[in-house]
């Protein structure tokens, strides 16, 4: 085949090559989301879902005090986890990118950080139990040292435990993209800043931070969307005592109230997309691709 035939716009090759991807996304992403939207207008009783067009699911959802409280709680988790993963992730990425001098060491330390990421999330969550529990390592150590006389109850099955588990699970989603952005920063810019008399802190604040923005954006989108849609971490780590949008949905699913769950899902999707759009206004992520 000659090159001009290969690159002609009418060539069928790219369509054949991309067809499997398009079919999978159509079947398992587009149609299912459309199904959710349709079902959110359906009616239901205890036994089945009934095709219909009613607004009741949304009216009930949007006028309920519980919905608002659930969203406030979920957004609270998202903001706290975002702030913590960003702070930790930025420092770790900065250390790896600018203070570790050889590439071998960068790779070794980087792999060291990624290995826990490959084990089951649920196992990583329950592994906090023997550490934070009433008779856990931390409490017995604190009592042994005489810091407290009673075990601290807030450590496990609490908002504290939920946020801690999220940070443990998702900080890597911040480290990787920020590190990636930092590695692309031209080192001569930093030397120029240093020659112009900038202190280390000023270089971080005025040179590295702005240039890392695309990575921070990608990491933030990951962390925020993962936390907003989560139900398993909140349920396990709060011991069922805190609510989140995901938990509300999974409860409705368990009770077979699919139209109610679908309405909840549509509202969640809209909220998540608005949050992502807001983040994309602050940083131009496309620069990174």
């Amino acid at each position, binding site marked *: *085949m000659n*090159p001009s035939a290969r690159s002609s*716009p009418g*060539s069928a090759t*790219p*369509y054949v*090559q*991309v067809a*499997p*991807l*398009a079919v*999978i*996304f159509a079947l*398992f*992403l587009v*149609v*299912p*989301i459309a*199904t*959710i939207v349709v*079902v959110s207008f359906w009616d239901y009783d205890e036994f089945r879902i009934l095709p219909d067009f009613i607004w009741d699911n949304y009216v009930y959802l949007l006028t309920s005090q519980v919905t608002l409280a659930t969203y406030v709680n979920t957004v609270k988790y998202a903001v706290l986890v975002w702030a913590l993963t960003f702070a930790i992730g930025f*420092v770790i990425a*900065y*250390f790896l990118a*600018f*203070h570790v001098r050889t590439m071998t060491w960068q790779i070794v330390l980087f792999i*060291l*950080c990624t290995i826990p990421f*490959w*084990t*089951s999330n*649920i*196992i*990583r969550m*329950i*592994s906090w*139990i*023997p*550490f934070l529990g009433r008779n*856990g*390592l931390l409490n017995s150590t604190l009592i042994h040292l005489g810091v407290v006389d009673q075990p601290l109850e807030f450590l496990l099955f609490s908002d504290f435990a939920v946020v801690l588990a999220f940070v*443990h699970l998702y*900080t890597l989603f911040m480290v990787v993209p920020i590190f990636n952005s930092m590695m692309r920063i031209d080192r001569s810019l930093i030397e120029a800043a240093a020659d112009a008399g900038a202190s*280390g802190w000023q270089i971080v604040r005025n040179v590295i931070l702005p240039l890392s923005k695309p990575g921070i954006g990608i990491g933030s*989108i990951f962390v925020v*969307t*993962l936390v907003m*849609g*989560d139900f*398993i971490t909140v349920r396990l780590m709060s011991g069922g005592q805190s609510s989140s949008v*995901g938990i509300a*949905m999974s409860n409705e699913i368990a009770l077979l109230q*699919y139209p109610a*769950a*679908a309405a909840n*899902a549509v509202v*969640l*999707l809209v909220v*998540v997309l608005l949050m992502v759009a807001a983040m994309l206004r602050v940083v131009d992520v496309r620069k990174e*691709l």
Partner: protein
Amino acid sequence: MDREGRSPGFYFLAAFFALFVLFLYGPISTIVILSFQGPDGGLTFPMNGGSTYWFANLFEKQAVGDFGGSFSRSIRLGLIVMATTLVVSVSAGLAFRRPFRGSTVLFYLAIASLIVPSILVSLGIGLMFNILEWDTNWYGSALGAHLTWTLPFGLLIMFAVFNRFNKAYEEAARDLGATPAQTFRHVVLPIIAPSLIGVALFGFTLSYDEFARSLMTSGSFNTLPLEIYGMTTNVTTPVLYALGTLTTGFSLMVVLLCLAASLVLQRRRRRHGSDAGRGI
């Protein structure tokens, strides 16, 4: 940054990094140690004897549900997801090197697939199968659900790979009379092979660990994460930790195998890359 000595900042950052690593590994090490409790041991320290009792307990079927079955289903599903992700991502990655109609829509669909909460994908596919009166199962609906999570990662890795790919190699092959298939097989594939291991690793482990997307899609037979979740709500013995230790060990083995394979491939490429003028 000075090249001679380490600044005080370095030691502060190194200490921070060490704490972070401790934070990552601390809890997991705790359950690894606790899984070797004696038969009378509980869920917390102090250790009550030492044995492999709880690991043996794990394989007694009636004791903790169907661990063997769910483990083998998860591995098989992971391998199918891995193979599909690999083929579909490479193929789509090749397509995206040239402009074609609908490429923007498809790109944004891939991004959307990453940011749509998992439970929504799960609910949507579950509902779709429910309405069509199809049965959900791990090798059909769950496979589709997992692919919506692994394919965007695969595609983004392929973008990164082809952005750095030097097209001169392909042109040279074409000028020498290679067909597109020969060019792909003998030139493109060996060059991108090490990155493909990354795609495979992502595909397998993301699927192997996926909980939310399996929830409404895996049908009557559990995958491993669903089984583990079930255990967290009704098992109160260190058998839970034995399971954690075993699956963590398995994941670690997969990662290390992939790293080793990638190293071997890179080394081979380096050796074969310098054969110019040797008359091979």
